[in-house]
């Protein structure tokens, strides 16, 4: 015979699997959540990890808007070294198609420069440069969050690329000799009509593909945003 006398004790070890348990959730500050996160991972003997070995998060959470104007879309050359990493030996066929954009927007001490673009009506490769002001260096591996990122391409059929939250990972290039980077370059791969909302929407192509080996898939950590973004870092 046990000494169980309390009603709440009857419910220990019971999982109310199929009940609709309606609970008002407590709001936590970002700091509190971070403390709990660190505590949890420490107790579990784990450390924060990512595909790229994240070390820190840059506190950049800002909206960026770029309005890009260019007349001869995908008709200029340039940035062949960057394209080479994406297209390999086929670069000679594609460099002539790239468009130099060179439009920037800065916030919280970081400049996002859209250096160049390449693509057709279905797929864009957008080459970003991320530059810290005052020549500061990015750490070996930083995360940069953009709460909102808007790219309006005025002269290319009126495309408007909207993104709720974009995460970029700044990663040291293994072949570089410099111990730190004051500027990094990233290729942001966009599959039109699948990831972003476009205005006006082009007809999605069933055969739209991207080079599998050059694309990393990442889901944002935010519970409010589960969209997946494709990008490549150089």
């Amino acid at each position, binding site marked *: *015979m*046990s*000494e*169980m*006398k*309390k*009603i*709440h*004790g*009857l*419910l*220990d*070890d*019971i*999982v*109310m*699997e*199929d*009940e609709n*348990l*309606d*609970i*008002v*959730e*407590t*709001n*936590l500050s970002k700091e*509190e*959540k971070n*403390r*709990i*996160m660190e*505590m*949890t*991972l420490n*107790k*579990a003997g*784990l*450390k*924060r*990890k*990512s595909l790229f070995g994240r070390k820190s998060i840059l506190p950049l959470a800002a909206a960026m808007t770029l309005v890009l104007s260019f007349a001869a879309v995908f008709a200029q050359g340039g940035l062949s070294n960057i394209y080479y990493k994406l297209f390999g030996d086929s670069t000679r066929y594609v460099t002539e198609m790239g468009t130099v954009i060179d439009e920037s927007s800065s916030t919280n001490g970081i400049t996002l420069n859209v250096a160049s673009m390449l693509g057709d009506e279905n797929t864009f490769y957008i080459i970003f440069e991320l530059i810290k002001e005052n020549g500061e260096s990015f750490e070996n591996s930083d995360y940069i969050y953009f709460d909102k990122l808007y790219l309006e391409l005025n002269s290319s059929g009126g495309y408007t690329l909207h993104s709720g939250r974009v995460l970029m990972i700044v990663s040291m290039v293994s072949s570089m000799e410099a111990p730190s980077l004051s500027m990094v370059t990233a290729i942001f791969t966009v599959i039109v009509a699948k990831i972003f909302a476009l205005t006006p929407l082009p007809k999605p192509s069933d055969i739209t593909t991207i080079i599998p080996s050059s694309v990393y898939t990442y*889901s944002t*950590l*935010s*519970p409010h945003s*589960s969209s997946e973004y494709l990008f490549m870092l150089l």
Partner: protein
Amino acid sequence: MNDIKLVYLLKNYPSKGLEAAVQQYTGLVKTIVVRVIGYDNQQDIEETVSDVFVELWKSIDNFDPEKGQLKNYIISIARFVSLNTYNRKILKHEMIPLEEDELEFDVDLENEVSKSINKEIIKETIKSLPHPDKDIFIRRYYLFESIKEIAQNLDLTPKSVENKLYRGKEKLKAALIKNGIIL
């Protein structure tokens, strides 16, 4: 993030899984923890919340998505871990007043065979309680919601909630005995 993806991460990429679980369910877990151990010590609260997630990770193989939602599984862990903290620290916070919580007879939940049979009887008996008695009972004794909160959430007066709880408790006792609970 949906349950399937979260469970997959917890099983295969624990760091990412735990990060996602904390992001998604900390508010829920903290509510349960605070109801059980009280507001007095912020450090105890955070420690207990993190214990819940570690326990979730350790026991994720026991979660069966066919049986129910991950949220309910996490609530059961939060309840279990919080009560352990409460008992271990001999806290003075009163979850439920004794006169309200007293069953007035013993139920055998120690002998493994009796425990298994009794658990099923308890679950079935709670399920059979009429609306809104079942909801009130679960909120009070499973989720440790205060009478004031229950009244607000169900649009009832506190007095009405108290009456329903009292009647529900009597019904439960009668049903447990009728259904053959092992004493």
